[in-house]
């Protein structure tokens, strides 16, 4: 089997997109550990519909980059068996809306086998899911399923928001001995470039990060909404409001430390995600922040998200998705309390 691949990405500094960051990260993980395998629909010659696995089958062979039959439960279920045999499978789900046929395997098997076996059977599986909307697609291609996984103990759930995080976080997720649902904001795949310096040391995977400091209000975001939040913070600054933005990065477990610190300082919080508001991550953050910072809060935690309707037809998706104005509106409402 082909296990060697020659690539010279070490030590360079380069401008990359999120798609490229993930691709490089996957390549690095495969070079570092021969047990790492990629599985999924069209991940081979095609390199995936988003080209995240571009060139990897060519370099690592068909036994390590595996085009699967079209059955998501089968993909995740066979990945479980591979993990039991000592492999570290990285599964690509083609689009968020197609993860549900695998939901049973994920919540009843992937999430529970380590527990069921009293720690004897580790489950180092990464399930990569391009998620979120804004790409003008047809139904089922724009979902935000994070809450449906984060509610399940035994799974870890993370979301990257930028190229450099993509590069590091995918490697950290693969190195993690627990199953990780790895959410990639598909709208950002080819949107912005960032400088990757491979010589730096990344922060640990399950940590949140202040991406813009501020004093008056805390804006919590992850994945695709980090960019929206940053733009909102900038706009708010124009109105004299100092908004702190936290990129949550990890959704389960939540890294509440920086969040609570921030809210204790600012007294106000707004959560922004594309997922439906009802029972979205915002509800959990609201509940925890209120429990822990009850006396610091000047206003209730407000939530901006997708409405509680199915994802609409793409011509009106931008009205469904939280945008700059809706975030600013929530910021205003917070200050009205």
């Amino acid at each position, binding site marked *: *089997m082909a296990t060697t691949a020659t690539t010279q990405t070490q030590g360079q500094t380069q401008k990359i997109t999120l798609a490229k960051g993930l691709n490089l990260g996957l390549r690095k993980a495969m070079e570092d550990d021969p047990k790492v395998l990629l599985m999924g*629909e*069209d991940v*081979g*010659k*095609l*390199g995936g*519909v988003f080209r995240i696995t571009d060139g990897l089958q060519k370099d690592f062979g068909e*036994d390590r980059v595996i*085009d*699967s*039959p*079209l*059955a998501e*439960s*089968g993909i995740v279920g066979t990945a479980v068996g591979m993990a039991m045999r000592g492999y570290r499978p990285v599964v690509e789900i083609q689009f968020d*809306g*197609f993860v*549900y*046929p695998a939901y049973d395997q994920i919540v009843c098997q992937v999430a529970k086998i380590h527990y069921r076996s009293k720690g004897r059977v580790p489950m180092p599986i990464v399930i990569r899911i391009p998620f979120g909307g804004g790409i*003008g*697609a*047809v*139904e*089922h*291609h724009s979902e935000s399923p994070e809450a449906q996984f984060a509610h399940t103990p035994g799974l870890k759930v993370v979301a990257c928001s930028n190229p450099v995080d993509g590069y590091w976080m995918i490697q950290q997720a693969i190195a993690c001995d627990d199953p990780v649902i790895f959410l990639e904001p598909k709208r950002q795949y080819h949107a912005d470039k960032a400088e990757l310096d491979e010589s730096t040391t990344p922060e640990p995977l399950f940590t949140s990060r202040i991406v813009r400091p501020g004093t008056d209000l805390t804006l919590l975001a992850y994945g695709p909404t980090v960019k929206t939040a940053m733009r909102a913070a900038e706009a708010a600054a124009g109105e004299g409001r100092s908004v702190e933005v936290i990129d949550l990065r990890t959704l389960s477990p939540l890294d509440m430390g920086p969040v609570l610190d921030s809210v204790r300082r600012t007294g106000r919080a707004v959560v922004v995600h594309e997922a439906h508001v*009802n029972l979205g991550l915002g509800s959990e953050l609201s509940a925890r922040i209120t429990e822990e910072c009850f006396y610091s809060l000047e206003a209730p935690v407000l939530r901006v998200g997708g*409405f*509680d*309707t*199915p994802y*609409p*037809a*793409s*011509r*009106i*998706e931008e*009205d*469904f998705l939280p945008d700059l*104005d*809706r975030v600013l*509106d929530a910021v205003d409402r917070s200050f009205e309390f």
Partner: protein
Amino acid sequence: MNAPPDSPDRTAFGPDLAEVFGPGHSDGGPELVQLLTPEGERVHHPEFDLDFSAEQLRGFYRDMVLVRRLDVEATALQRHGELGIWAQLLGQEAAQIGCGRAVRPQDFVFPTYREHGVAWCRGLDPLKMLGLFRGCDHGDWDPAEHNFGLYTIVIGAQTLHATGYAMGMQRDGVVGTGDPDRDAAVVAHFGDGASSQGDVNEAFIFAASYNAPVVFFCQNNQWAISEPIERQSRIPLYQRALGFGFPGVRVDGNDVLATYAVTQAALQRARDGQGPTFVEAYTYRMGAHTTTDDPTRYRLSDDVESWKLKDPIARVEVYLRRNGLVDDAFLAEVAAEADELGHTLREGCKALPDPKPSAMFAHVYAEETDELRVQREGNEAYLASFEGSH
């Protein structure tokens, strides 16, 4: 690694099935039911032969020319930014028209996302399909009006709906009564890739268990995006049905006559109360998977070229001409009709009204809930707050 070495044990289980049946023959193999060869020659089949009237044949031709035009126009509209995406049917016209014309009004059809030709046969305004791919809605037709379900994008899901619908027909007493105007059946469309989904195989199990009147119509276009059929099955797909206890047949999906004949027979079997049939329409996806796909990354243009010789429309045209069933006037008329259709679609597509943002709140439930009313009204007030400023 995966090549099975020789071994004396093999005989204990009989010969290797994958070897006996071979992987997909590019010509469909000896089991392929064909009534019209790629060269336009009418051949006969011991089981599935039918007499076709000249009018029927001309109708097939016209249908195929028009749906090909529809497809070409839609592809162009996507290139011009008028559609978000388009799933092309190029090359699959015969499979879709043959099947679509075999269906009677009282039958019900469950499509995937590529059955524009079948939709055509069910009387749908093609602008509805364009509207969906433009992003105006998720499908603006009434399934009950056309007995044609909404496009289903989660692959395979609709095969279970089809089976349940067929079970409903059984309960309605419209199966096996012997009355041709009453007896009805269901067609479930799906692709070769979808055949690997659990749902599709469960549909086979339910249909077999209840002897439901459903025809599983699989367009094996050889590809599931970049994956060749061999990834899904090492033996011909139609044989999948045998293990579930109902018949399967492979028909030349580029032969509209054979597809019509086989589908009709399978539907009749279902309407008569004899249960499900699997029809594998052996065809080829001549275009990309969708307009966002780039097939040059994963398949050889040689293959595409060889399938061009099996074009579903060309062979009918040759046959019609050779037998004097059409004249130049007729062909010119169809061509003009196609031009007209193209024009209508181009204009119609651009004129499709954008949905209002508030449309997103409609029809979540049979009646709007208080929760949603609050969200909708809140959003309306929010949008209204910009009216002055913008």
